[in-house]
Every structure is written in C-alpha cells, then in structure tokens.
C-alpha cells in the first residue's frame, strides 16, 4: 500500500511548459495541475499527451517553463522514479523473457531483491490477474495480457503515482472493462494517484470525472467532465439523420430555435442538421418525427470524434 495522498496538494504541476522537437511542437505554453485521485488526460493523437508524460518521467527536458512532480524536478532526478510507475502505450516488454523475468528485472532495477521481490511479483501478478501466465514468454501474450503485464511492471515497486499511457488502446471491450475496473481499484483500494490518457472521451468518463483536454500541445479545458461536457454542448453540433420523409422533418426542424441549418444529403434520404443546443434537439426530436410523419433508420453525430470537439473548444 502506498503512502496516503488523500487531501494532499497537487502531485504534478506544469507551468508554461514548452517542448519542441526541431520544428515540431510537442507542448506549447502548457499549464496543468494534477491532484490525487484519477485524472484523465484526453486528446487526439499528436496532442502532446505522451510528451507530457515523458516530461513527468524526466525522459526529456523542457525547452521552456517548469514541471514538478511531488515538488521535485524530474529531469536528471532518478531518485524520483521510486515514486512513479509508468505503463507506456508502446510495446516495451522484452520478447524473450517470461513475465516473471520481466518483473524480476524491473524489481531489481528498483533495488528490490530476494524473498521480498518474489512475494511482490506474486502480489502484483495476482492484482492484474496474470499469475497464471507469469512463466510464459511475453512474446506470446495477447494485447490485453501485455497491457496487464506492463501495468504489473509499473506497480512492482508500489509507487505513489501511476501513469498509464493509453492503457485501453487496441483492447477488446471485455479487456477494456476489466482494465477500467482495475484502474479504479488501484486508486480506490491501493491509494495510487493515477494519471491515465486516452484519445476517447467516453472511455475516460467511465474512469473519472476529473479530466484535462489537450489539443495541439495545450490544455484546452480541465476540471470536472460535466462542466466540459456543458462547454462542448454550447457549440453547434452536426447530426446526420437518415430515413423516409426527410423533407417534412427538415421543414419541422427549421421552425425550431436551436436549428442553425439543415442540408439534404445526396438522394434526399438523409439530412445533416446543425444545432446550437444538442440537448434540446435530442429531447425534442421524437415529437418532431411524430409531427412530420417520417421514419428514421439511422442517426449519428459527426462530432463524436475528439478532433471536432477540440476544434470547437479552441475556436471558442
């Protein structure tokens, strides 16, 4: 069990942080405070999430600004790593080693040895439900097993701060649910501060309400996810509706105050509606469909991808 972090101040503080690779900007004037609990860092690919984590871990040094983790500067400070566990988003397990050999290597690198290390390996393997596969080569693991073993490696030295970079990426829905449950348990029962990244907002919503949204190397919003959702909902949404009788539905929609525009798609079997208040639109739509006497076969939002949401937020 880690030292308790409940009620403590921020664990990570980034101020005016900047990092670039040649002409490519990784982070630009990035500000963020991460407090104990589970914090979700959400952003599309290339938004700077991994760069931020590398700065937290001291794998790279910032060009501008400051970053502190537990009040210490990460770059050139290997001692800080005894407080941090990191599960990267890429393949990092040595293919020719078994899970036990991998955990033994990581444990030794954290100055653990002997019976205490052997016991801890069993504990973390049990925690991530990988005890049965400890003596198998990691090269033969499935994606979900690899993710669990990487998480076990991050947990072996019982760190206060656990950084999980895209842990759900590429996993099937069952594994995803199990990893989400595990992450929640690590915070709730084992008191780890967890920072978890994803490029899928709804995945993070299932983990935590405390999120930071990143886009193009900046924090575009941070705080409670319901506030951010409200912020998002203030901006026009594009929804595609397909079915029969679309012209009469389009006419009914144009009479509503929240409708910004309606456009027919191709053969008039579908329309794209731009609305300013999505909540009003979704609650009023069943009534409008009934009034128009049409039937809807499918409906989807063009704005479900994060890129569109971030464009709204940046443009506001």
């Amino acid at each position, binding site marked *: 069990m880690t030292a308790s972090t409940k009620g403590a101040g921020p664990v990570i503080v980034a101020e005016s942080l900047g990092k670039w690779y040649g002409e490519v900007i990784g982070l630009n004037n990035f500000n963020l405070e991460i407090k104990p609990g589970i914090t979700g860092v959400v952003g599309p690919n290339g938004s700077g999430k991994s760069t931020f984590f590398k700065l937290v871990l001291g794998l*790279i040094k910032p060009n501008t600004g400051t970053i502190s983790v537990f009040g210490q500067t990460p770059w050139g400070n290997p001692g800080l790593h005894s407080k941090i566990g990191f599960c990267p988003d890429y393949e990092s397990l040595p293919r020719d080693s078994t899970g036990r050999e991998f955990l033994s*290597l990581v444990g*030794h690198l954290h100055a653990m040895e002997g019976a205490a290390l052997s016991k801890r390996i069993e504990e973390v393997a049990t925690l991530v439900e990988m005890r049965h596969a400890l003596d198998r080569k990691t090269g033969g693991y499935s994606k979900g097993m690899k993710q669990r073993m990487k998480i076990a490696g991050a947990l072996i030295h019982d760190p206060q701060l656990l950084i999980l970079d895209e842990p759900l990426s590429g996993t099937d829905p069952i594994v995803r649910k199990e990893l989400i449950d595990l992450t929640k348990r690590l915070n709730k029962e084992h008191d780890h501060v967890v920072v978890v990244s994803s490029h899928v907002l709804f995945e993070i919503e299932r983990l935590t309400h405390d999120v930071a949204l990143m886009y193009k190397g900046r924090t575009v919003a941070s705080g409670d996810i319901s506030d951010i959702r409200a912020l998002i909902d203030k901006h026009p949404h594009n929804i595609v509706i397909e079915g029969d009788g679309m012209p009469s539905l389009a006419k009914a929609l144009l009479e509503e105050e929240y409708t910004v525009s309606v456009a027919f798609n191709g053969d008039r079997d579908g329309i794209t509606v731009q609305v300013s208040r999505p909540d009003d639109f979704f609650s009023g739509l069943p009534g409008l469909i009934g009034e128009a006497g049409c039937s809807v076969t499918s409906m989807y939002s063009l704005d479900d991808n994060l890129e569109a949401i971030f464009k709204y937020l940046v443009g506001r």
Partner: protein
Amino acid sequence: MDLKTIMTGIYALTHHSLKGLLFSRKAVITALVMLLTVAVMGYAGAQDVDALTEGANMMDVLILFFFMPVMAMIFGSSLIRDEIDSKSITHVATAPLDRAFAYIGYYVPLALAVSVSMILITTAGFLSFFLQQGIDAAAIEIYLEFTTLVIIGSFVYSSLFLATSVLFNKPVFFGLFYAFIWEGFIGSIPGAIQKASVKHYLRSVGSGWVDYGDISGFDASSIGASTAVLLGLTVFFLVFGAYLFREKELS
C-alpha cells in the same frame, strides 16, 4: 542514491543483457565465425610448416587482427541503440538508477559476452591447428597469451563500440567503417598512422609476451605505454559513453 540501488541495478542489467547477448542470434554468428576459423586454421595446420611460428601468425592475423574488432562491433555497436529503438529502454530509464550506472550495467555484460565469444573462437582455432601439429608447452603458452590478448581487446573494443551505440543513430555503419576500414586498413599501414588504432597497442602488448611469429618482432610502442593507452582509452570511452547516455533525451 544508495550503494544497494546501484549494485542491484547493475546486477539486474548485467544478468538480463548477458543472457540476451549469449543466447541470441549473436550466438549463431559466434558459431559461424568459429567454423570459419576452424576451416582456415585447420587447413593451415594440415600443411608442413613451423608449427609455433605459423600457429602464432594465424592467431595474430586471423583472430586478434581481424575477428577481434569485428566481433566486438557485432555485439556492441547496437546494444543500447536497439533498446532505444525498441523502447524497451523505458524500464531502465524510469528506474531510480542513475543512467551513468545503468551504462556500466550494459558495459559489463557486453565485455563479458565478447570475451566469451572470442575465447571460444580462439580455442577453436588453436585446437584445429595444434591438434594436427602437436600440442606442447610452447603451444599452450601461445594459446594463453592470445587468450589474454583477446580478453583485454574485448574490454577495450566494447567500451568503444558501446559509446558509439549511444552517440550515433545508425551505429552499425560507423562500426563497419571502424572495424574494417580503420582497424583493418589504417591499422596495418606502415608508419606512425597505425598508432591511431587499438590493434597497434594490443599487438604492442602481445609483442612482449609472444615469442613466436611476426608479433614477436612487432615494431612496438613500449609495453607499459601501450597498456596505459589501452586502459586510458577504455576509461575515456566509458566516461564519454556514460555522460552521453545520462544526458540523452529518450523521446
């Protein structure tokens, strides 16, 4: 950082890397080089020659002169770079172990693995030649002297190639250039320029030990000075490589 953290970390990396170096595709390369050495020295051993002179010359030219830098290059030039490229270095870089000590944890197994490989090659060559010519005390002396030289060479060349594996993004190209062009060609040009090769100082040290073959008459720098140069080069490349590794951003 306490001593326990440092020693446990170096032990862990040594254990992990040594296993990877000795039981990987590099073991196949060692076996192939052994076969080649057996073929060449076995053929030479089947001829009617002065056994001690010809045997010493074969071990000098084939093993110390040619295979020594080549094997060190094969083992060392991509050791750290491969881990950086595969990102398995993450577990080392996020451990509470100063990277300068982690670097030592790569150097020790590398030098040991190159030594083991070169001892096997030297032994195979020696046996294939002298089993035909007859093994006596003088032959065993030659074997032990060249074995000592390849062990010293393993530690020196390993420090050089490990540093290049941090310095260059494509260290194998530099390694090929260095092993074949610099050591192989520049190191054999008559005159002072050959003193710019590691091989010159290895042969200088060997000239004081080996009583047979061309190496015994090698126009050497003083043995003491050569030993100091080899030691100095090893320490320099270790410190230089450790510094580079410590300051390297792992993005």
